[in-house]
């Protein structure tokens, strides 16, 4: 065991190493470790916040959906009501239109009837005159009696 200068050399190199480690090695590494700890903590907090926000958003979405459904139901109800109204309206219109058509048809029929009557009248007169002509072949002056027959036709 010889103690010699090595002792002092070792002390000096030891001090130098410790100084270097203290100045250039330890602080950056520890700073990085601390920063990572902080980042992880921040990340966890952010995750929690995100989850909270998601819950809120879900709730909001559910509310919106509910409101939308309600609105839709309302709109649907209104539409149905309106549709019924339209149906009723068109029913009324159809009915009046039908009545009008019937009315017109009836009027036309009346006209037809009148015309037919007219025709019949004239034909009946002609037939009567023809019949009378056949019966009274000889002695009848068609000219003299046609006035009487016209009066007769007018009376029918």
């Amino acid at each position, binding site marked *: 065991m*010889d103690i010699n200068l090595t002792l002092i050399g*070792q*002390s000096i*190199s030891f*001090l130098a190493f410790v100084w270097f*480690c*203290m100045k250039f090695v*330890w602080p950056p590494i*520890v700073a990085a470790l601390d*920063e990572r700890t902080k980042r992880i903590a921040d990340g966890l907090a952010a995750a929690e916040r995100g989850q909270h926000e998601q819950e809120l958003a879900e709730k909001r979405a559910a509310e919106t959906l509910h409101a939308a459904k309600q609105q839709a139901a309302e709109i649907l109800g209104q539409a149905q009501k309106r549709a019924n109204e339209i149906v009723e309206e068109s029913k009324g219109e159809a009915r009046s239109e039908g009545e009008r058509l019937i009315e017109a048809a009836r009027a036309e029929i009346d006209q037809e009837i009148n015309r037919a009557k007219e025709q019949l009248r004239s034909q009946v007169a002609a037939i009567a005159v023809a019949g009378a002509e056949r019966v009274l072949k000889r002695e009848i002056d068609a000219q003299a009696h046609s006035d009487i027959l016209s009066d007769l036709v007018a009376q029918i």
Partner: protein
Amino acid sequence: MASEALTSNEYIKHHLTHLTYGQLPDGGWGFAHSAEQATQMGFWAIHVDTMFFSVLLGVLFLWMFRSVAKRVTSGQPGKLQNFVEWTVEFINTSVRGSFSGGKNDVVAPLSLTVFIWIVLMNLMDLIPVDWLPSLAGALGVGHLRVVPTADVNATLGMAITVFYLIIYYSIKIKGVGGFIGELSFQPFGKLGLPANLLLEGINLIAKPVSLALRLFGNMYAGEMIFILIALLYSAGWALGTFGAFLQLGWAIFHILIVMLQAFIFMTLTIVYLDMAHQEHH
């Protein structure tokens, strides 16, 4: 391996001789050629092998850690950064567990340096004892001991530095008066002043001495056992094979000692510095 010309005794002696640079008997300066010459050089000589390997390993440690510290990121760490962070975290936990002296920027880096440096120096013990000395011999260097911590100068050098720090912090925290008072008036009060001085003085001196000798003793003994096992290799193939298994077993066991001694040195350093920060009442 021991050459034919060496006896066992000479082999061991050769392995336990440092590469010493100092004043030779003829008055010139140079490397000692034998253990006796090395001893004769007295205090003004230096163990070049111890210095070389300790500084080499210290620089290796700092270079590795500095290379990580330069591009350290708080994001995803690489493999080396992961290892360095794990080490730093381990040291930090140890310091926080043992040191209660408030904010101190020195203790943690000091502990890191102590731990890693001692581990690296101790690990030199696991290199087969003849490899590096044989290589050095081939290069013309007569003696070489590769385990710096098996040199009492190295361990004592570190322990004395720690001792200075203990005194520095004692005085810084308690003042000169407080420090001397602590040595003088405990544990027996004012009347037992001589006894107090003796007890506390021994207590104080025992710290660096025990710190240095514990590490030195363990590593010296470990190295010695490796040398003795290496002797078996020149004693026939049967003993040689036996020696190979012994060396393997001892090396595995020695890993434990390597880590344990480094950890003890570090922990005691922290504890001593913590005690220096404590006010005794």
